[in-house]
């Protein structure tokens, strides 16, 4: 059954978490622990933190995340098309040309609009 495979994946997930946490626990046991105020200050290359950590970011972060979501969803349609292409004819390729054409022109739009620049 399908679920058998995924039980292994579940076990692997637990093993990976254990593999990651074990050394941290061991380090907690044997590593020295001397708490002090200065050591737990956020690291500022020696300069004291200026004001609260309040900073606003430019819009290009949102635009790149947006492009990522749109093209990630595009792959959501590409995978079934690629998997099922054997039992589909040439017309599937034409449909995919139309689909990719739309998204490529969306990319060209963002490119020509100048939002893809990391100023």
């Amino acid at each position, binding site marked *: 059954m399908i679920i058998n495979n995924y039980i292994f994946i579940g076990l692997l997930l637990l093993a990976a978490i254990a593999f990651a946490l074990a050394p941290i626990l061991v380090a907690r046991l044997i590593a020295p622990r001397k708490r002090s105020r200065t050591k737990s200050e956020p690291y500022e290359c020696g300069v004291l933190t200026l004001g609260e*950590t*309040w900073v606003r970011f430019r819009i290009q972060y949102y635009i790149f*995340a947006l492009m990522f979501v749109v093209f*990630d969803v*595009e792959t959501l349609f590409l995978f079934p098309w690629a998997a099922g292409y054997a039992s*589909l004819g040439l017309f599937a390729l034409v449909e995919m040309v139309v689909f990719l054409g739309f998204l490529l022109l969306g990319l060209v*739009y963002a490119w020509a609009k100048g939002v893809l620049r990391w*100023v």
Partner: protein
Amino acid sequence: MARILFLVIAGVGLTSALSTVLSRNLVRAAVSLAGFFFTVACLFILLEAEFLAALQVLIYVGAVSILLMFGIMLTRGVQGTDLVSGPSAARLPGIVVGLVVFAVLGYAIFEEKGLRTQYSWGALDERTAIARGSKEPGSPLRSAVNNMGKVVGVELMTRYVIAFELAGLLLTAALVGAVAVAHREEDETRSTGSGVPPEKPEPTADKPNP
């Protein structure tokens, strides 16, 4: 054994959904939302729709939660604490409406007169079995479960081709529209931040890029 697995996953899912809705800190809400999406993906695996489970993880956990966190950073700054919205007045009616909806849906599920003459949802315990391990192409459901990617691909390209092309158009429209909305023209008139809540420092002027 499958039932225990379901209960564990459902428990984790519900707690992470609740913490998304109730937690004060937005980024922690986004983290528990990503956890909720992961539990939904595990449920899809229990339902043997593993193609969809992989898609759910790829799109929701990989892309949507990153976009939400960027959205939080772009509007709240570092802490991501929900500075402005204190305990909103609508908290009690909201919970009441939620419980009423859950009660109605619960009754609808367990109501004994199902539409299909022989059984209703409540009585449906066994899933339509698909013969295990046999190689010859059985019912479409088994071919759908065993290699779902292929069958979805064939269906998308033939039966639902209009929905497929329209989804492409929807994505392009979302991309173009969101870029147009978020794009700032250099010479745009800057709106003065009037009525800024006190706990924020004086409004930082929106510097258009040169």
